[in-house]
């Protein structure tokens, strides 16, 4: 028996089935390792959504995922594979932290926006550089963004431990930012901060930009067919740089949010990884800004619930990595899901081309 579906449903069904299948595989692994599957998944659920505190924490984790997910998705829309979201995030965190602790005597409603803008700008510049290199020389953004990641992460480490080091701190970190640079909490007592609201706003902004403006039309056209874009008189180079700058800006905002809303400083031990998970999130959302929200939330829920799952079922927290890895695999190879569930696709719809060869 073959399941034949209307074309639109497949876009929703395949990702959904990928997630479910991955969870099933996770369950099998849990069972094989001798642990209690029910306890494990109950713990996962409760850890992510079981209380007001848990939900707030999940949203806290969702915030950087939304922004970096949008960043990568936006790059994909222009035919660019931005692996540099991580480095752009660090750049944003660095800039926001500096503005946060170095500028004194400014009222809240000026200091905070400046810090946020600094974070966006830093990420934007860090993203624009590989965009410019691609436009000028054809150098592939995959290679350059990976290298830029290394540069920024090491640079951050150096700066935090040296010129930006707080001499009075017991661990290597920047000074705490001033209260006038804080992103306020949404609900006092919980860690959820206004960065979450900014992330939601970013979703709608990016959606509007991509689908309702001239600029978005150009960016998408360049991403779908460079030859036609050229024929239409669009400036390919300009769009590459712009797309990478916006992408970098979003990732920079993610970094700024973590510093200004959560940690209030930038420690040398700053742990991220958001920029890399963002690739999976963007793929799962099929580069659709609106779909980035559930996709990001899923990832955050898995991360957040993993802790409680580990405690309740006595299994390694790495199991979550396995589940996530399977989701990524199924998204990258939807044929597998199709084959398992016997879903036939009569006409292959044109997808978004992720990357093409080395340089042009």
């Amino acid at each position, binding site marked *: 028996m073959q399941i034949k579906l*209307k*074309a639109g449903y497949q876009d929703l069904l395949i990702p959904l089935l990928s997630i479910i299948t991955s969870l099933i595989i996770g369950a099998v692994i849990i069972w094989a390792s001798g642990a209690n599957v029910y306890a494990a998944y109950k713990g996962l659920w409760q850890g992510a959504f079981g209380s007001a505190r848990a939900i707030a924490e999940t949203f806290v984790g969702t915030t950087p995922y939304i922004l970096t997910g949008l960043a990568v998705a936006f790059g994909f829309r222009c035919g660019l594979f931005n692996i540099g979201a991580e480095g752009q995030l660090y750049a944003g965190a660095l800039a926001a932290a500096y503005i946060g602790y170095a500028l004194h005597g400014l009222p809240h409603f000026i200091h905070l926006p400046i810090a946020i803008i600094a974070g966006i700008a830093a990420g934007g510049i860090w993203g624009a550089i590989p965009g410019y290199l691609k436009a000028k020389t054809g150098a592939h953004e995959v290679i350059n963004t990976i290298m830029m990641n290394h540069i920024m992460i090491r640079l951050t480490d150096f700066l935090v431990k040296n010129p930006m080091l707080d001499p009075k701190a017991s661990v290597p970190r920047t000074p705490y930012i001033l209260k006038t640079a804080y992103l306020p909490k949404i609900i006092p007592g919980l860690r959820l901060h206004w960065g979450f609201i900014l992330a939601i706003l970013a979703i709608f902004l990016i959606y509007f930009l991509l689908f*309702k*403006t*001239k*600029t978005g*039309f150009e960016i998408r*056209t360049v991403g*779908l*067919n460079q*030859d*036609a*874009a*050229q*024929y*239409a*008189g669009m400036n390919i180079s300009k769009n590459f740089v712009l797309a990478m700058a916006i992408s970098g800006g979003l990732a920079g905002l993610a970094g700024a949010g973590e510093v200004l809303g959560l940690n209030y400083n930038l420690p040398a031990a700053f742990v991220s990884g958001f920029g890399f998970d963002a690739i999976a999130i963007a793929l799962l959302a099929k580069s659709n800004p609106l779909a980035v929200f559930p996709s990001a939330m899923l990832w955050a829920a898995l991360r957040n619930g993993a802790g409680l799952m580990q405690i309740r079922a006595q299994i390694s927290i790495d199991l979550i990595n396995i589940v996530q890895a399977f989701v990524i695999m199924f998204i990258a190879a939807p044929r597998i899901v199709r084959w398992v569930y016997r879903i036939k696709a*009569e*006409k292959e*719809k*044109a997808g978004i081309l992720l990357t093409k060869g080395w340089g042009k």
Partner: protein
Amino acid sequence: MADEILLLKGISKSFPGVLANDSIDFALKKSEIHSLLGENGAGKTTLMNILYGLYTPDAGEIFINGKKAVIHSPADALSQGIGMVHQHFMLIPTMTVCENIILGNESKKNGLINVEESHSRIETLSKRYSFNLNPTDLVKDLPIGTQQRVEILKALYREASILILDEPTSVLTPQESKELFNILRSLKAEGKSIIFISHKLKEVLEISDNITVLRDGKGVGSVSPSNTDEPQLARMMVGREVILKVSKQKMQRGKPVLQVKNLNVYDRRGVRVVNGISFTVHEGEIFGMAGVQGNGQTELVEALTGLLSFESGEISIDGTGLRGNNPREVFELGTAHIPEDRQKHGLVLPYPIRDNLILCSYYKAPFSKRLSLNFPYITESSNKLMEEFDIKAPGILTTTETLSGGNQQKTVVARELAREIRLLIASQPTRGLDVGSIEYIHKKIVETRDSGHAVLLVSSELDEILSLSDTIGVIYKGQIVKTLSYYEATKDKLGLLMAGIVSET
């Protein structure tokens, strides 16, 4: 019947919203060249895809040599002796002829591919049908006509006795088409049966033993070429009288619009392909540039439309000189361009029709207001264009990729002719299109000229050049070897000029 090698009976197939095949019957005799004729969207490709196992029919049966056959995949089809040569080749350019032919069907010796056996089998087959193929040549170094022969040999290597050829001459020069027909005749003499899918009435009449016409998913009838002619076939295909010869008013020539002086253009590999070309196109004139593909026309048009920079010389539109390499500059000077490759330059296939219709104009008011796109206006204007230019599709949000070639080209034409222009550059505008669409596009080109605009028509179809042009320039090796008026030109004269033979004309 005894000599019936293939019978399709009552084949029906529908896709969401479209009945592609409606109870079609088709019979192929052994050693017969049977043409399948029809407009784009008539159902020919669907029918052949069913035969080749790419689709399963909703109803109907297939009989091979009188026995009921079940075909679930191309592998099934091949194992039952059916081979297909697609319009767009499925070859790997960086591999050799031999590697391409044996791909998926390698003969092995001790776990390693038996190269000698493969080579010798290919050489034997190649000699038998006079294909002149060298197994060790790389496919990307071969001319298109030879690449096509590799595709055909792929099917013969798998011992296909039924060959389906989908629009085989659409990529060939007239010379290569002649060679292909000779090959088809020798295949027929060897007992192969051939299904020839085509739009081109003249060729179908020349090569076929039998012709079946499809229209709107239904079979309209089968005729023998000796009993029919072009007008009758066109009538069967379209369902009404088709004007095969374009009627135009007398030319009312006005001021010069496009002036090209001593233009030199280098192609992307650094070779000079346009050598000091000069010509002028006036208002109310159709200037037809005739030539075999590969003589610099493609690069000339790209230079004129800003897709390629030019080395030296002048291009001016209404007296304004072009700086070059800037499509928007050309657009702003009132030039419309129907590109040679509509899927590459002309359209963004994943976009809805609406977005393709605003592809060039999106940045100007009233299509956009400040930063945003003005969707109410865009929607209204797109709906009007769809109706005016007869684009057959469910709506403006239909994905362009799903349209037939003819409707895709109409989308391009609609976009280009929707605004006030001074110059239309049409490059191979009816390539790959069916009779109905060709008639439509030709009508639009003549309308443009009759409205007092200038038209540059670049085409390798001599019939098209002869029926549309007021002035004809023949391009050979990047230069115009001769310019003539339409009443001086004959097919023979042009044929000689296109081959570079200038002397006695």
